[in-house]
């Protein structure tokens, strides 16, 4: 068992037992942490692995949340059945938005995605087709029912979010050990070399987008379930900046890095609510310092993920 597996198991074990110790205030912080960790991990597929400067990740989180809200409140669909739509819509929107600009270089791409995020927020706030509810959003989202059981307690929602995190980590582990996952790293490290090895760069970048967006979409659904309401400011540009910063500050493609990043950005402010207003000041300073002192993030990724039979025997060197 290697280091990474140990950390993952220890982390999941702590998270699994947290509801036994926590009161309801802590539990809801726990849910927030889980949901935002999933979104951060999904951004880590796009930004940390494919290396695409996506500054609009809150869009896909929002598409998921609003899909669940609209289908449930306006069309009366059971929550559980809205989730496949949240996945598919997020992936489709991701490909439609990123497709035409996928050839742009890092900084240009980043500016374009900021534009998308601003437009998205405007669309939500202006109650397009009378579906999005305007600046106040959508209220009165139903509780989730699975096999006739109503799962409305915080503990139940906590474990739904926890399950989603496990699935996300499972997908990421499988991704990292596959042709597609490796292609993303190659593109990130040297795009010209990747092309020259026969890797279709735009195709793999869009794949990363579709996969990252669909995971963020499910997280959005869970977010909507948790608050039984959605509103535009949860999916604005500032949220995208947060998801972007978590990955870079924590460490691209690094599991502990993303967890630390999410904890610092989303959980600490909840613990120190009296400082809530000044939190951006502290984060801003933390981001600047990390980039100066540890440009690869607090906990950078390590490579060398190859099968055992290829590893040189110890002492052979």
């Amino acid at each position: 068992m290697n280091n990474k597996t140990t950390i993952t198991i220890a982390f999941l074990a702590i998270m699994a037992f947290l509801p036994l110790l926590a009161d309801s205030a802590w539990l809801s912080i726990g849910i927030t942490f889980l949901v935002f960790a999933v979104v951060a991990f999904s951004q880590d597929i796009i930004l940390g692995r494919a290396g695409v400067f996506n500054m609009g990740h809150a869009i896909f989180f929002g598409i998921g949340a609003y899909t669940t809200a609209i289908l449930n409140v306006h069309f009366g669909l059971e929550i559980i059945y809205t989730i496949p739509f949240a996945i598919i819509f997020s992936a489709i929107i991701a490909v439609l938005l990123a497709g035409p600009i996928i050839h742009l270089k890092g900084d240009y791409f980043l500016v374009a995605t900021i534009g998308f995020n601003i437009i998205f927020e405007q669309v939500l706030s202006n109650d397009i087709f009378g579906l999005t509810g305007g600046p106040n959003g959508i209220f009165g989202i139903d509780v989730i029912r699975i096999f006739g059981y109503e799962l409305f307690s915080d503990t139940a929602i906590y474990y739904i979010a926890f399950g989603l995190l496990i699935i996300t980590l499972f997908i990421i582990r499988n991704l990292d050990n596959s042709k597609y996952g490796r292609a993303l790293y190659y593109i990130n490290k040297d795009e010209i070399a990747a092309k020259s090895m026969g890797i279709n760069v735009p195709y793999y970048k869009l794949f990363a987008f579709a996969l990252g967006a669909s995971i963020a979409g499910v997280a959005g659904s869970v977010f909507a379930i948790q608050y039984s309401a959605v509103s535009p400011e949860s999916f604005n540009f500032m949220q995208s900046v947060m998801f972007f910063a978590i990955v870079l500050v924590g460490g691209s493609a690094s599991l502990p890095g993303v967890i630390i990043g999410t904890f610092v950005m989303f959980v600490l402010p909840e613990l120190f609510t009296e400082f809530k207003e000044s939190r951006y000041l502290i984060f801003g300073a933390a981001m600047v310092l990390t980039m100066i002192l540890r440009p690869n993030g607090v906990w950078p990724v390590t490579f060398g993920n190859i099968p055992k039979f290829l590893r040189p025997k110890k002492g052979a060197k």
Partner: protein
Amino acid sequence: MEYVLEIKNVSKFFSGLVAIDDLTINVKPGQIYGIIGPNGAGKTTLFNCVTGIYAPEKGSIKYKGKDITGMPPHKIAQMGVLRTFQNIRLFKEMSVAENIMAGYHTKSKQKWYHSIIHNSFYKKDELESWKKVEELMNFFDLSDLATTPTGDLSYGKQRKVEMARALAASPELLILDEPAAGLNENETIELTKIIKSISEMNIGIMMIEHDMDMVMNLTDYITVINFGKEISQGVPSFVQDDPRVIEAYIGSDDENDKEDANGK
């Protein structure tokens, strides 16, 4: 099929300036074809046209009889034209084995859903892929360095990893851009042997090289270019004594060129 690569009357301009001018080159399978000429003659530009990094303005490039002029780089690579780079483009933070795996990308049959769910097909494909990497690491004597990040390796080792990566794609045309640059004498001798044995696998090899001893020993046929134009073509012994070639090299201040090439 007589030729693996046919470059016919190819020209490339950069904002009105001629980078390569009406070049015609034919490479046979298993042949080692040298491209030489002073710095700035357009050699790397020619390679970039063949591999799709640039699209030539005039002329045509055919690979195994199929027109590949202006095709995107990844398509050309998928067809079997692989390359190395003058300034080494490895994935520095990644291990030797992972780097070589990049070359196997086009051979792996995994689909998008294999990155989410690992089934028995995935397992078989993944094992086959790593076996190929193992084979290449043995061939290039890199097995002990499998987990070492390529950025930590010596120049000579890095050049070998880059070649192993290109070979992992089972190319039929291998394009080497100054493979001996920065290597010491022993490493150059080793490299010469490797290139020879690659050509014996019936892979066509096209190489730019400034090390004249190596070029004269290794290549079967040479084109000399200067200011983008062909000034001579033939077997090494002919090119070596061609007055036009001697003039181009002396006329272009040969000593400075050599220093530039070695200083890189």
